[in-house]
């Protein structure tokens, strides 16, 4: 009965999500204007804005825990035509409309929809997707996501140092090490050794780093208050970097038989060889591409669904909704916990398999 209730409420709310998403879909600039007006009068609640805000990047860091809310202004680092320019995002005065013009290093900047542009090159009502690279400086600011990324790495680093310290002189794991060691051994034996073969040892540190980074980012992203609750592994840029590193390592360690398989596939009629090679070359790129999309889509979808369930309460303002969407949120949280481990494992496993393809000697 409980199962039925859950699935029924889930399907109801899933259809509601679709409904609300359709209802909220409006032209971009209009939406943005509406959002700011929402922020100003605080009367109408816009769930699309909230969800988009959570999932996108920003120059301001909103530190939000119960009974404490503060916006930190993060440093803006720009690579402009006049060289490196650094200033605080406070100078924009939380403006995102291009109204405030900041003059630094002999150049004028303004900010439109979280994009910093040259003030003299961009008009007032420009769409964000129309801004070209010569209209804006390269932005290397410490944004919300960059700070979250740093916090994740720092925390992981501290945990790993703790793990290392938890070993006594005889190498017996105590405390934290007893919990992390089985995972390390699992990655080493069942992921690396199993899939890469005899040359597995030099890939183990990378696989461990990738696994623990993804796992930590996934798990910390689920903690619903600052400085966590971010959306890093659900950001396609982060997964793009991870997949690119996997791609580079795979092709650097590719041996003769790996390249032969790609460029001159054995066991194929000679007329077909160029075509198969073409497909193989394509698959060189599609493999890491799939890695990138898989991790991103899983985490992104999970965060979106959880946020949607939560925002439903504020959309409907009905006593029954919090109950049902509360249940649904808890359910999603549990499944996201599973996904956090699963996706970290899948990414690591597939990376190991790709490395294995690159280093395995021809066996046939």
């Amino acid at each position, binding site marked *: 009965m409980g199962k039925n209730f859950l699935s029924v409420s889930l399907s109801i709310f899933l259809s509601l999500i679709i409904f609300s998403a359709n209802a909220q879909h409006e032209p971009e600039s209009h939406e943005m204007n509406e959002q700011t007006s929402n922020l100003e009068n605080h009367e109408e609640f816009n769930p699309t804005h909230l969800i*988009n805000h959570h*999932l*996108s*990047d920003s120059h301001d860091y909103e530190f939000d825990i119960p009974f404490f809310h503060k916006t930190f202004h993060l440093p803006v680092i720009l690579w402009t035509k006049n060289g490196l320019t650094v200033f605080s995002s406070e100078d924009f005065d939380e403006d995102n409309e291009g109204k405030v013009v900041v003059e630094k290093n002999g150049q004028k900047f303004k900010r439109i*929809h*979280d*994009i*910093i542009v040259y003030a003299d090159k961009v008009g007032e009502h420009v769409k*964000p*997707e129309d*801004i070209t690279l010569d209209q*804006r400086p*390269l*932005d*290397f*600011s*410490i*944004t919300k*996501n*960059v700070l979250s*990324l*740093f916090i994740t*790495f720092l925390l*992981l*680093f501290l945990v*790993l*140092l703790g*793990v*290392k310290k938890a*070993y006594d002189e*005889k*190498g*017996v794991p105590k405390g934290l*090490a007893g919990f992390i*060691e089985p995972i*390390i*051994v699992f990655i*080493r034996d069942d992921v690396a050794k199993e899939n890469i073969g005899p040359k597995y040892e030099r890939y*183990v*540190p*990378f696989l*461990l*780093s990738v696994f*623990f*980074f993804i796992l930590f980012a996934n798990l910390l992203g689920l903690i619903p208050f600052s400085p966590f609750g971010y959306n890093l592994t659900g*950001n*396609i*840029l*982060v997964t*793009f*970097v*991870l997949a690119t*590193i996997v791609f580079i390592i795979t092709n650097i360690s590719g041996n003769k038989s790996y390249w032969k398989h790609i460029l001159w596939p054995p066991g194929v009629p000679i007329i077909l060889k160029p075509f198969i090679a073409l497909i193989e070359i394509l698959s060189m790129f599609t493999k890491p591409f799939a890695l990138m999309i898989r991790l991103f889509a899983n985490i*992104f979808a999970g965060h979106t669904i959880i946020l949607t369930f939560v925002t439903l309460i504020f959309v409907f303002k009905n006593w029954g909704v919090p109950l049902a969407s509360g249940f649904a949120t808890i359910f999603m949280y549990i499944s996201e916990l599973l996904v956090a481990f699963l996706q970290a494992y899948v990414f690591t496993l597939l990376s190991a398999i790709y490395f294995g393809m690159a280093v395995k000697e021809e066996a046939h």
Partner: protein
Amino acid sequence: MKFFHPETLVFWTTLFFLVFAVLFYKLAWKPILNIIGEREKSIEDALAQADLAREEMAKLKADNQKILNEARAERDQMLKEAKQMKEQIINQAKEDAQKVANKEIAKAKEVIENEKQRAVKELKNQVSELSINMAEKVLSQELKDKDTQLKHIEKLISDIKLN
């Protein structure tokens, strides 16, 4: 989700990942993997040593059994030899005794033969002496008178008979 300045996150993610991957490697993975590896090796060694000890023990046991068996076989052999020797000695003794007895018997027989020969010889001598004596006495009687001679002969004859 839209990305209007993707270089920000791509740059920092790459930088952070590379820097922290190196840090993790130097300060965490390398020492931790070393510790785990060493421990596994020591466990393996200990197990191998235990196996070796067990093998040695089994070997020792087998050796003991072998030595015991050899000792037993030797004992049996010795007993057998002793028995044989005993029989041999007894047989030898019997033979020797037989030989000695036979020799004695032969000697005794010879002595008896010799004695018999001597006795026969002596009897012969005595008989001849007696006959001479008798003849002497007969002759001397005859010389005196007839009667007496006869008488004497008769007497002699009866004497002989008495003898």
